[in-house]
């Protein structure tokens, strides 16, 4: 994409306090995704058409040098997967995946040549992931989507990376041993936003397809 563009950063995400907080921390504008509502009939994907329309409109807008995508998890209580009912599954996983696909598809289209995309995803640390299978699945899907974009957009100089944060998807008591840093689980406007700024900066010009766990040393991978 070589047309007119702005420096950004632009945050793409739903109308959600987490998205607003992240945008504020980054000094960014927000392009809001349409809401993905739970559906009465099982697995209907009633959100497909609004998401496609939004993506097509977003993709046609001016390019930006830096795009941040944030689709916060639908947080409930940790719950064994076998106890997750179909409607809850649809909202926590299928709606989330559809939204991420639309949002990262738009990010691909909006990001200017030589620019950078960062996906910010809630990810339960592996040690603490019991009861958070839906969010663990979505987080790994986002990682694979970002790496796919890193490959496809790399030839035009676009870098794509992921920042994970655990703060919204933790059990009441975490598994021993304690995380490395006493600041665990970190804050969205500090540790997570800091990692995003790092990956958007020119200093990260050689970093793409990478996942940075901004979780104070809880996940080493």
């Amino acid at each position, binding site marked *: 994409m070589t047309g007119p563009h702005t420096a950004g950063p632009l945050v793409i995400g739903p109308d959600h306090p987490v998205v607003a907080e992240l945008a504020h921390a980054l000094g960014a504008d927000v392009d809001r995704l349409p809401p993905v509502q739970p559906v009465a009939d099982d*697995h209907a994907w009633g959100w497909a058409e609004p998401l496609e329309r939004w993506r097509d409109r977003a993709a046609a807008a001016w390019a930006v040098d830096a795009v941040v995508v944030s689709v916060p998890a639908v947080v409930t209580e940790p719950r064994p*997967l076998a106890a997750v009912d179909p409607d809850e599954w649809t909202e926590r996983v299928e709606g989330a995946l559809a939204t991420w*696909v639309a949002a990262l598809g738009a990010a691909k289209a909006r990001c200017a040549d030589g620019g950078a995309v960062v996906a910010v995803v809630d990810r339960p640390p592996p040690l603490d992931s*019991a009861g958070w299978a839906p969010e663990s699945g979505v987080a790994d899907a*986002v990682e694979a989507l970002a*790496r796919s974009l*890193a490959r496809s957009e790399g030839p035009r100089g676009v870098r794509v990376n992921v920042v994970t944060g655990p703060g919204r998807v933790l059990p009441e008591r975490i598994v021993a041993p304690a995380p490395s840093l006493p600041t665990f689980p970190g804050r969205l406007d500090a540790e997570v936003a800091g990692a995003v700024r790092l990956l958007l900066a020119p200093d990260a010009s050689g970093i793409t397809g990478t996942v940075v766990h901004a979780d104070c040393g809880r996940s080493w991978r």
Partner: protein
Amino acid sequence: MSEAKVRRVVLVTGASGGVGRGIALACGRAGWTVWIAARREREAAEVALEVDRAGGRGHSVTCDAADRESVAGAVDAVVSCSGRLDGAVHNATSGLSPRPCDLAEVPMADVADHVAVSVRGTYLVAAAVHPHLVESSGALVVLTSEAGFEGKAKLPVYAAVKGAQRGLARALAREWGPEGVRVNAVAPLAATPAMSEAFERDPEMADRVLARNPLGRLGDATDDVGPVVRFLLSDDARYVNGLTVMADGASCPIT
């Protein structure tokens, strides 16, 4: 409990061909009872006969992995007939898996199909087999892909659902471990009809895939991939949990 004395009962989704068939035959070679769960009834029955010829006991049951009632019905049929379930393998994947797409333009209907078979299928199979695996101290294996680690430039949605399966398996291993049930994933690289279709659509892909593989060949579904899954289902792997095993000849640079 010796596996020679007790005929292990396992169910494999999407086993009417490709990697699923290879897993079924590998389990059949060990003398196990193998249920071929697939939408294609006739092909599933044929693989069940192949399992018989391999030394096991083959059965088939119609199963749409994306449909809750179908999955529950298939698992009920297995337990009703065989009396137990020791292992389950979710291998079924969308027919769209080898078809390239652009993330900025992919129809949401295609995304829905990928998610339904791979991701929802994992959830539905897990929920249906869980009580039976608790009873047998059994194991669940989910078939993912190197795409779930490293992404694919032309197959981003396929890569996403394969990544999602890894995350689900990793969390389930922690969730089910206290109940004595193990959960692992396998990322195979094998010669399959889907791989052939992908090579036809992208002729340069074969060179790319083989050039980085130090073994210089695609895996065989029955001889290279099936035994890995069989191992993870067996008591020999009773201390292996929460792992994604790469059965890809060291093709993928990430593990």
